């Protein structure tokens, strides 16, 4: 192929990439601004009233708070469990470590819809836990593999002799962990938190099975809203959420080079 041909091909590939990545985003932003009573694209007239309406829908507010809570506390719990797990997997030659690694990887491979169904069938129904509790457990379980993975990779280059050095300087094993290991994997832990937060917040299939009357995560609530009302406010909300995710990732990238860890 000649140079001109190659340049043209490059431009086409770039154009297609942008179309498929940015295109849907633009469509949502515009659809949410359509001055119509129903979802329309291309938008007919432009208005911000649907963006304003999002904030007045009572159930959106409740489900947003629930999703926020699940994302923050579910991810925190996943980290409380996941950081020691990642540490143990890296440091000790545990029997069955390979099995644990496989299990930890499973939710990344197994479709969420199966995880949701399994949780409902074998945990929620037999144990009769509350819907909120079930959602909390599910989101923690969902984020845990990501936490273990990301923290593991940041722990990988950390040599064990650093902790031994700390112990010989007077640290207990636990102090060696908090004073030497944790500061060196801080970036990885933060990255895991952000990844976990976004994953949990946007999670649909698992929550679909577990949401109950009056207790819904935001994405599920949006689905339910669309079944009844077909106005552009769902598109507006989607656009706002996309902006929120974007802002989080942008700040994270600026603060700690987030993309190194994912």
């Amino acid at each position, binding site marked *: 192929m000649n140079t001109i041909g190659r340049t043209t091909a490059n431009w086409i590939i770039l154009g297609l990439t942008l179309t498929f990545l940015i295109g849907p985003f633009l469509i949502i932003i515009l659809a949410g601004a359509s001055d119509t009573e129903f979802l329309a694209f291309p938008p007919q007239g432009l208005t911000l009233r649907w963006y304003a309406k999002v904030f007045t829908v009572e159930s959106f507010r409740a489900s947003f708070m629930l999703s926020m809570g699940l994302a923050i506390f579910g991810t925190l719990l996943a980290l409380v469990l996941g950081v020691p797990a990642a540490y143990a997997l890296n440091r000790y030659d545990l029997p069955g470590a390979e099995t644990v690694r496989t299990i930890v990887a499973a939710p990344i491979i197994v479709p969420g819809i199966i995880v949701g169904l399994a949780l409902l069938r074998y945990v929620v129904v037999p144990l009769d836990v509350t819907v909120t509790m079930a959602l909390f457990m599910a989101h923690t379980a969902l984020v845990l593999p990501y936490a273990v993975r990301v923290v593991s990779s940041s722990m990988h280059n950390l040599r064990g002799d650093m902790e031994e*050095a700390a112990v*010989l300087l007077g640290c207990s094993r636990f102090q060696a962990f908090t004073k030497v290991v944790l500061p060196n994997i801080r970036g990885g832990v933060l990255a895991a938190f952000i990844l976990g937060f976004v994953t949990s917040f946007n999670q649909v299939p698992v929550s679909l099975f577990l949401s109950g009357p009056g207790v819904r995560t935001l994405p599920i609530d949006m689905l339910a809203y669309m079944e009844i009302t077909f106005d552009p406010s769902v598109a507006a909300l989607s656009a706002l959420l996309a902006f929120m995710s974007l802002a989080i990732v942008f700040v994270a990238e600026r603060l700690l080079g987030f993309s190194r860890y994912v």
Partner: protein
Amino acid sequence: MSDTYVQLTDLTLTYGQSVAVPELNLGIREGELIALLGPSGCGKTTTMRAIAGLLAPASGRITIDGRDVTRVPANKRGIGLVFQSYALFPHLNAFENVAFGLRLQKLSANEITERTLQGLATVGLTGYDKRKPAEMSGGQQQRLALARSLVMQPKVLLLDEPLSNLDARLRLEMRTELQRVQKETGVTMVFVTHDQAEALALADRIVLMKEGRIEQLGTPADLYARPETAFAAEFMGFENIFRVEGGKVVSDKGTLPLGFATTSPLLAWRPDGVTVGSGPHEGRVVATSFAGAHREYVLESALGPIKADADIALPRVEIGETLTFDLPEATARPLAA
């Protein structure tokens, strides 16, 4: 011995079922610089880790200054260890690396600062306190690791191949540096190496190890001149080692008559102990190289290859030609079987 400071008694060290060091007995004197020398896998690191308390012995005892520390955990033992990899804390600058152990001791801020700066000065790192380890050279990192252990005023300082990561020039520099610091602080030092030249140059005494056992223990001069076994002789540069049977020198390849009487079953000669250019034996030159003060030859003889150093004044003999040589009594080192 009365001046023994660290005593290892019947110390057996294992990894699972495999015994790395069986029943080791070793006394280390206060203030001495002792080298653990031996080939890879002979148990040097294992022994150090046991002294430091990072590895619990399967049996045996460790006493320091008369006190049994066998069951004392590593963080209470008061022993410093400089790791081969330095194991510096990458998130802390040089000052904080050195201050790390002092901060755990709840000392006053003034004392921490003073001792840390003093420690950095001892190893010649004054002014580097704000640098992170990643911003320092290999030699500087090595000195930083040394300072971090030294400021704790350890009873014993262990160094695991502290110079092996450095290039040749820096290695020589750090050798003298280590010696100076040791004399200055008077700390008892044990350092591991598999480089015999390094052990000879640095140590007050050398512990030569083989497969977890002490092969020979002595001053560098002792070991250099009087190795007792074939293994020790080989390590000290005796490259020609042969059996003696019925007044003859014997190898797997053949025999040569021995010009003198001996009762030892093995005899060894350094290359410079072999007489070249005269003598009763002949060998064909198979390799030769110039080495400054002398010329090195490899002679194919009735015993197989003989390594011999010839005076540089002697005319050069080409590969394929024959040279006469002798294995004289004066330079022969008798060895135990």
